[in-house]
């Protein structure tokens, strides 16, 4: 399942990140690691970027970046 296909505030554990290696590395560094619970908590008025909540913080991700996040 892809995180971007889920409705807001639905929490799931991250399965893996499926995107360009270097970019995913940055997301991992930010704390978006497999096993962590993540949810979309807000969508910007124009539909992009999305705000995800992870490890007690909020991170704004472009839809393209968020689409790499696969959840269980």
């Amino acid at each position, binding site marked *: 399942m892809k995180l971007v296909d889920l409705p807001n505030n639905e929490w799931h554990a991250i399965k893996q990140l499926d995107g360009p290696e270097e970019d995913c590395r940055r*997301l991992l*560094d930010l704390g978006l690691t497999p096993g962590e619970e993540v949810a979309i908590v807000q*969508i910007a008025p124009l539909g992009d970027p999305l705000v995800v909540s992870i490890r007690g913080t909020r991170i704004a*991700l472009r839809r393209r970046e968020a689409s790499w996040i696969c959840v269980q």
Partner: protein
Amino acid sequence: MCAVANKESNSIKAMVTVCLVGMPNAGKTTLMNSLTGSNFHTANYPGVTVSLSKGKSKASFGEQINIIDLPGVNSPFSPSQEEELSCQVLTGKHDQVRPDAFVLVVDASQIERHLKFASFAARQGKPFVIALTMQDLLERVGQSLDTEKLSQALKIPVIPIDPRTGEGAANLIAALHKIISEPLRTNSLESLSEEPIAAYNIIRKLLDEHKVITKTNPQLIRQQDSLTARIDEYVLHKFWGFPIFFIVLTLLFASIFWVAQPFMDGIDSGFKWLSDETLELLGDSVFVKFLAEGVIQGVGAVAVFFPQIVILFFLMTLLEDSGYLARGATLVDRPLALLGLHGRSFVPMLSGFACAIPAVMATRAIPSKKERLLTIWILPLMSCSARLPVYALLLAALFPAESSWKAGIVLTGIYFASLFLSSLIAGLVSRLIYRRRSLSMLAMELPAYRIPQWKPIAYLTWSRSGTYLKKAGGPIIVISAILWLLANFGLGSQQPTISPSNSTNKPGLVVKSELDNSFAAQIGKTLEPILLPMGVDWRVGVGLISAFAAREVFVSTMAIVFHVPGEDEEAQQQGLLEQMRSATISANGKPVFTTASVIGLVIYFFFSLQCLSTFAVVRRETNSWSIALVQLLFYTVLGYLLAVSTVQGLRATGIA
């Protein structure tokens, strides 16, 4: 600046140097403030454009220490220019900033993520201690943290810092002295894997095993900060998000212009008075005239914008510290990305409406080089405040006093047009040069909303404004001095003769009687063939040349070339408008300021990069003469061509 505390040279014990490092929003500036008691300044290191804060710890905290505040780092992988500098210092690759120890600033409410970054720092082998901040936010996320246990788990000294009072700073200094004299043999962070998944797992295991964190509110799941979530629901709301954004921006601009106005008037008349007095007291020698009109008025040209710059930086720092600026960048990321820009281009573009110079400097936070250059490229189009007096004069010449409301509407239109056209140019340039749409990342943390803290905001405002004065001030003063020389010396008269009647005039860049023979006039007359298509003569040309010092100098130059004596400003403005309306081009007898030529001038000022200080800052920030030169020529030629075609087009349709 360098650490020279050699263990061997104990006889002369040099002061040790430490650096503050951490992720963005970790509270480094607040800590810097408590450690040094605001006694710090911005230091520039050769070879790097990023300026760092540097200061000495308060004497009351024991033996003093040099402290350098490094820019916050999100990730050491593919860093922005600011992040890169911090990483260089951390890994010991920076040849000038070589600290004896580090303070890792860790946000207690974001402990896992911040410890992950700390492990990167710990691997570099330098002594360090952890300063734990933001414990006040823990309550909001339903947690409490035991500092003792954290220290045991990490085998690293952890010093809690009270985020409001800065209490704990003295302990931090003591811990630093201790760690430098007896470095730790081992700690739990240095052995952490570079691989993020494993590193995060070990961090959580360490925290769990030592029971560092206790949940105080079992109802609160997933450590969500409910206050921040509630505010974001409005601020990023589908319908309310943009209206709130525009209200915030309107308030910001309104205060920049309205609150600053009385201060600007005061500074303006202060420098005029100083210049008058200098002439009166020291006599009319060439040197005194140079001092009064070239130098003092040049300093005045810089100082007059200082109130706007201070207010802009104050409000932006306030928005940044409260957490709103990151939301603003999120809102506009989508439209900006379509143009090849980045959400982080938003802050520089906003600053550009006050002055392009701090705006260009603010682009350092944009991670991708392409997007940073593109942002720098369009910044000169933002309608900066130096254009305002020029537009005011030209629009007053265009509309009679009784319909001045029309001028107001046109001015508003100019501001929107500058946003629209800069977007258009950004879009075109990014399509032409970069071809493919940029695939850069946003991945921007939205910090928890907090009540802003005044002391660090006041400090940051002051240091950012000071950087502007230093970077912009020098060039403007030098250029206005050169322009004064050009306007007052010429091949015909090696030395300007000053008739006694002139000395009672308002001092300005030039005095008319010498102007006809000056170098500036010669340049203006040489340029007349290319000025005539714009519908103006060499006198306006002199104004356009002097406007390269700063755009608003155009107004004072106009007052001098059209020779308007007058004691008070209003009479002078009225007199100037009358003179301008009746002025004719000597070559063909047509009036200089017609509807067409004034519109042409507005268009010229809209596009043209009439600001050598911007040129200087762009050169420094991009480290490239060619980018700065191409930009200068591009906008100036574009402005000229558009002005000429507008004037000719209007004339062809019967509007003179």
